[in-house]
């Protein structure tokens, strides 16, 4: 189950943070997202020799904590997507698929002429679209 989704701009400014749990630990999730930004920077600036493609957008599993797994995705325009999930047996392909759909929703939200680049995304349509992508995510991989 996805607990938190974040979009961070190229100057590490938050553009969209949404947590999907009812419990009150939003702050802890924000902290996890913030720490994962460092991991992304490290991955991008020091590519490991063993990694197959240093130019790929999907960065894979960033780091596992005790309860959560954190996945990262870096677009061409240096915008980072961060996904925090509690599922422990998630497939890579599912996460890639999710990020692709999320990227499409993000591009549509940014193309809004009333959106100011660098400020938070405030579109309600974007929020609804994201919830519709997030809902089936846990169900597919659980089955």
């Amino acid at each position: 189950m996805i607990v938190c989704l974040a979009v961070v701009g190229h100057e590490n400014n938050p553009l969209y943070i949404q947590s999907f749990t009812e419990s009150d630990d939003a702050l802890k999730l924000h902290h996890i997202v913030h720490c994962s930004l460092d991991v992304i920077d490290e991955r991008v600036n020091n590519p490991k020799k063993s990694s197959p493609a240093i130019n790929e957008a999907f960065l894979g599993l960033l780091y596992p904590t005790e309860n959560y797994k954190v996945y990262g995705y870096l677009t061409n325009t240096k915008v980072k997507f961060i996904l925090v999930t509690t599922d422990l047996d998630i497939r890579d392909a599912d996460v890639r698929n999710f990020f692709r759909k999320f990227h499409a929703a993000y591009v549509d939200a940014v193309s809004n002429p009333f959106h100011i680049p660098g400020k938070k995304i405030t579109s309600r349509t974007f929020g609804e679209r994201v919830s519709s992508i997030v809902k089936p995510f846990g169900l597919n991989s659980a089955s």
Partner: protein
Amino acid sequence: MVREVSESCVESLLAEIVLSYCSGFYANKPELAARRIEAIGFQVGHQLSERYTMDRPRFTDNLDAIKFICKDFWSELFKKQIDNLKTNHRGTFVLQDNRFRWLAHMSVDPSVQASGNIQDPSAMAENKSAQATGMHLYFPCGIIRGALSNLGIECAVSADISNLPASLCLAFIILMPLLWLSQNLFSSISLQNADYAALLVQSIIF
């Protein structure tokens, strides 16, 4: 789902933008009109580059980004690629388009030539027509600048028309910061601000 845009609508819209900014909003201040049109183009290019880099692997360096502009970005906008790319390997790129679609249907008013000085009518007419079409080039320059800035490259973009209106060769010149060497008029100038650079280059070329 691919959405399509009518080209004649785009051309009419661009002509109207230039007309209303040059003769309406900033009637006696062509530099302000130019800046405003270029800023509109900047935002459009910013958003378009977000969309067109979606399925692409990340770029490794500046040359990759410029090649993306020449090939994929240009073919999404104008259904053709840039015809010629030149660089001096020190941060200046010249993109040449031999048939720029947005100006292809534009004609120059022949009455402009009649009002010129008798001594040098051809040069005067060419100057006036270059001025008139020059205003229409700020929008594409802004688009390129916006797209490049979203990819992390701050630059100044200017456009130059040669052989008009016969073949409408258009050259977009992209200057990367911060050092710009010109052979003709200036010695080396170091520019702090990309905006100032754009205005400076435009004032020289136009």
